[in-house]
């Protein structure tokens, strides 16, 4: 039998079902992996060993009586942006270092109700603002493929843990690429569904018109399995969409013959590392060999997506993060002189540099005299970008390209230059601005570091993305590659 930690979620589900091992045995094996490897990676903010073993025992008992859910006894990790009742939720920030949520996020509630076992909370860029996990108050996460490199961000703890075979799957959130970029840099699968598909209730808000929850896994099949549980209408999220959730695992086995794959010429220009581009073109050739046809499409406003994002996201963040006032929860400064001093010092001390920078950027673009020039303008350009996608999807079913401009970069390389860091998300941000589903699928190595194929679909076409990715993974084994030190 393949060692438990090497198995995918789907394989583990079969093993549990056929009684090859119990959930307690599986959970203990993975907790041993956490103990062995987390010091190198710093992928966890909180490890919930006792709770995990108790849930696993409960799952084993439920299996005996045939009452377990579809994920009964399967271990996962939650990004520390999801509120978990009774377990601290830090969002990677000193501001919430000691925050214990009084309720569960809907995502947490749904996965737990299906029987998932939570091993812990994963490290992340502070308030999900970053592309390298270097902005975390709890220190950077390291990439299992090369410990000097970033595992991406903001869901970097999730991507590192899944890549290192510490957990078969982890939740993540994606505001500008925060699931797909870390998946790409760690050789894992990451999917961000359509905006509104998964509830944002209990997911600490960064930019509410862009934030969406998803998963990081080792196969498209596993992603389909988890997404089906997480997705669905939630009255507690005012932008949740009331549409039925298909069983994503049912159609992934279907052929992609005749699938129209859009190729964006602008994706392959000077900004893309040549070897990364070569891996992506090889992946597209595999899709063609499976019967897909390629069609050239154009996204003429792509260059403006990053500047648009860096107006819209900071504006929304400056508003969302105004709730951290040192009064109701979160960090509070000692001995405030007056109420204003309490606010200013609590926030000045509780937030890190990047978060403060984004709050100030957002405050600036929303301030009197600048609103029209920046915020309103960005909202107009956002529509142009969304319209470009709409036109493209009139002729194609998916758009394929690179997830990131290059493989993982070294920790420390970009942290002092916000603009260079921001440009890492150039291929991923468009999907957030337009609210489209998108995923990253491992498509090979460049200098021993993984790179990802990026697939974007029209609204509510997660099934097509997952099928395309799954069919690709039937022909290739890039998603099974494991960093040597973590086999």
């Amino acid at each position: 039998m393949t060692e438990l930690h090497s198995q995918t979620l789907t394989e583990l589900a079969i093993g549990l079902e056929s009684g090859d091992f119990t959930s307690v045995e599986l959970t203990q094996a993975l907790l041993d992996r956490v103990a062995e490897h987390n010091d190198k990676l710093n992928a966890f903010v909180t490890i919930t060993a006792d709770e995990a073993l108790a849930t696993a025992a409960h799952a084993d008992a439920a299996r005996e009586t045939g009452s377990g859910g579809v994920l009964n006894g399967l271990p996962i990790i939650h990004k520390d942006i999801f509120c978990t009742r009774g377990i601290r939720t830090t969002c990677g920030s000193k501001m919430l270092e000691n925050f214990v949520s009084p309720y569960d996020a809907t995502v947490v509630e749904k996965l737990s109700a299906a029987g998932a076992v939570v091993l812990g909370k994963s490290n992340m860029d502070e308030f999900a603002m970053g592309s390298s996990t270097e902005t975390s108050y709890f220190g950077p996460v390291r990439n299992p493929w090369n410990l000097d490199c970033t595992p991406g961000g903001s869901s970097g703890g999730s991507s590192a843990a899944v890549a290192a075979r510490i957990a078969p799957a982890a939740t993540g959130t994606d505001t500008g690429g925060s699931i797909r970029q870390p998946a790409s840099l760690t050789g894992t699968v990451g999917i961000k569904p359509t905006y509104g598909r998964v509830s944002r209730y209990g997911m600490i808000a960064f930019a509410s018109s862009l934030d969406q929850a998803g998963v990081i896994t080792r196969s498209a099949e596993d992603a389909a399995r988890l997404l089906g549980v997480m997705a669905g209408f939630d009255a507690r999220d005012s932008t949740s969409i009331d549409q039925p959730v298909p069983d994503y695992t049912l159609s992934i086995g279907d052929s992609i013959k005749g699938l129209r794959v859009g190729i964006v010429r602008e994706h392959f220009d000077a900004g893309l590392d040549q070897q990364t581009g070569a891996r992506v073109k090889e992946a597209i050739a595999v899709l063609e060999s499976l019967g897909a046809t390629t069609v050239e499409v154009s996204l003429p406003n792509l260059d403006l997506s990053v500047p648009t994002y860096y107006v819209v996201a900071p504006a929304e963040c400056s508003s969302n993060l105004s709730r951290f006032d040192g009064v109701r929860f979160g960090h509070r400064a000692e001995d405030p002189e007056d109420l204003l001093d309490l606010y200013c010092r609590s926030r000045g001390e509780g937030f890190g540099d990047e978060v403060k920078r984004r709050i100030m950027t957002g405050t600036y673009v929303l301030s009197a005299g600048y609103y029209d020039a920046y915020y309103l303008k960005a909202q107009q350009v956002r529509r142009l970008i969304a319209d470009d996608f709409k036109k493209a999807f009139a002729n194609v079913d998916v758009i394929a390209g690179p997830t990131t401009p290059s493989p993982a970069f070294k920790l420390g390389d970009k942290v002092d230059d916000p603009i260079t860091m921001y440009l890492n998300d150039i291929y991923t941000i468009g999907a957030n601005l337009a609210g489209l589903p998108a995923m990253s699928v491992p498509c090979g190595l460049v200098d021993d570091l993984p790179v990802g194929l990026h697939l974007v679909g029209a609204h509510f076409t997660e099934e097509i993305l997952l099928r395309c990715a799954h069919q690709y993974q039937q022909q290739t084994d890039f998603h099974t590659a494991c960093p040597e030190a973590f086999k």
Partner: protein
Amino acid sequence: MPLDKDQVHHIAMLARLKLSDEEYAESIEKLSKIVDFIDQLSQAQTDGVVPMAHPLDAAQRLRPDAISEIDERDAYQENAPAVSGGLYLVPKVIE
């Protein structure tokens, strides 16, 4: 257009952020770069384009005006830095 110290002071005050002198120096430099970067938007031709506030053209849902939440004040206040008798304590606002 680079931001000056007065502008960054004004922004920090609006955002209720107390910054150290070093943080001010760094913020002036980095925020100026960010503002330069987002100034690219001014090149876009957007006459007559309707601003997009939301990725899906969905209307805000309505619900019956009925109480849907139970009183969990005590649980919520466990996270508060200072409370008394169910109230949140702050420095004196009115002399």
